[in-house]
């Protein structure tokens, strides 16, 4: 089977064309990025608020915990049953998937954000207030830059989960790398499934690597030193 998988993966026909790996990867990535962006849009501001004010922490922990407990497959089916008759075109299929992925991504982004802000040295926060920064200056000039490593690692782990889970989108009939898993199972072509799984894992790693690179660029070297020291 390993050799069959290798054959499939090295066949140029597998990669190109409308149903090829490249095209499916683009779809997969597009859905994943949209989901991550939407999750960040919700979770980062809420996380900043909780971290800065210390209010609502208990609520956030529990909401995040409950979100983690929601089974993605179930939500996907419910959302599809509700939305499919009411929407048309690609959106009818994609929206449920994106919704599921957003739910999945909110907990890690939220907890990364508020943990990052909370972890800012209390002395630095006190000093910021003491030298006359306003609350929003404290947030944007001190807390956010100092929290950035944890915020980004929250985004990274959310993205890993999104990319792996986006494969179940294929069940409700849309594109992405999940097609190889679902179609491979249906046609009992296990080498296609195995190859598909490898491509998903590789894509996840690649994206993580890119995000790690971004993290290196945007995080202050002073914080890297502080961790090493």
């Amino acid at each position, binding site marked *: 089977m390993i050799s069959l998988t290798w054959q499939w993966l090295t066949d140029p026909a597998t990669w190109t064309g409308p149903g090829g790996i490249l095209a499916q990867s683009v779809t997969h990535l597009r859905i994943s990025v949209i989901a991550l962006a939407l999750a960040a849009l919700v979770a980062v501001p809420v996380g900043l608020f909780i971290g800065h004010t210390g209010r609502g922490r208990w609520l956030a922990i529990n909401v995040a915990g409950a979100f983690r407990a929601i089974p993605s497959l179930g939500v996907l089916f419910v959302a599809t049953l509700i939305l499919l008759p009411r929407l048309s075109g690609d959106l009818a299929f994609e929206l449920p998937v994106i919704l599921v992925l957003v739910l999945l991504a909110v907990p890690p982004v939220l907890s990364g954000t508020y943990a990052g802000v909370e972890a800012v040295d209390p002395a*630095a926060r006190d*000093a910021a207030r*003491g030298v006359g920064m306003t609350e929003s200056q404290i947030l944007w000039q001190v807390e956010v830059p100092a929290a950035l490593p944890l915020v980004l690692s929250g985004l990274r782990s959310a993205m890993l989960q999104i990319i792996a889970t986006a494969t179940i989108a294929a069940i409700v009939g849309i594109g992405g790398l999940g097609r190889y898993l679902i179609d491979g199972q249906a046609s009992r072509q296990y080498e296609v499934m195995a190859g598909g799984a490898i491509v998903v894992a590789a894509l996840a790693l690649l994206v993580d690597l890119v995000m790690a690179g971004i993290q290196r660029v945007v*995080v202050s070297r002073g914080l890297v*030193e502080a961790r090493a020291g």
Partner: protein
Amino acid sequence: MIRFEGVTKRYADGVTAVDDLSLEVPQGGITVFVGPSGCGKTTSLRMINRMVEPTEGRILINDQDVAARKPAQLRRSIGYVIQHAGLFPHRTVLKNVMTVPRLIGWDQARARSAAMEAIEKVGLTADQAERYPAQLSGGQQQRVGVARALASDPEVVLMDEPFSAVDPLVRMDLQAEVRRLQRELGITVVLVTHDIDEAIGLGDHVAVLRQGGRLAQLATPGELLREPADDFVASFVGKDRGYRKLGFTGADLDPAPEQTVRLGEDVPTGRGWVLAVGEGGEPLGWVDRHTSGGPVGEDELHRMGSLAEVGDSARVFLDAALSAPSRRGVVVQDGRVIGTVSAQQVVDSLERT
């Protein structure tokens, strides 16, 4: 001048941190708030720049009520130094020190040159200005904290336990540095500490607070040691109050002439110790006539005790005498030996005063 008028801070849980505090912090000089934990010294300090709001009473800086100013504006005009420095870890030393100049709207170039000036003032190098806080030692970080407080030339600087987290040797350096900066810049420093030695050594004025946030005594260190207002102050000031008092007592002494010898010269005949001096008359060490003869070599020098400078306190003179192997304390003026004093002489002079 900073004036507390009947200032009280009561928290929601009923704890009174500061109780009807009225005092004046004189313009210029270092005023120290000292007391045991729970005496409200930090709360009092933090009410000056409105990090804490008083429940009752008011605080005036140069006759202006601080409550009349916006907290952020007020704080930008007052230097602020805290225990663990509280540097921003993601900013270089330079950017940290530029914080307040930038907040008050100075342009990049002006903020930068003010910050560099402050960094040099506290004894850091231009090279260190480009580093991140994590790359500095604790003592250096605290220097950056002081530089950050000074960068916009504030008249008043608040310091909350600024030296508590550094080791004793570094602490002494930093204390000397703050003393020097205060004299040089003529600023008013209000400093909080729990360490009575630091208070007495550093303060021009010392406010002793007692538990429950009440002022026990505000006086100069010398007065505090000579005339503690009550038993609390006396016990807080400590058991060796009499000895410490020497630090604030002048010594009216005539140093006795001392026989000296230069390196390479023959040891003069006689008994006991001879003081070796260098070309300019500066003291080098003591030579024991029991063990040496002939020309004095460097390896024959015994370590010197501490030196007393003309005009020093009785404590310094006594220490010079007690720490010298000859039991004669070396007195110098402009670096040159002018004679020695014995412990007996110092004690006699104290008897007379």
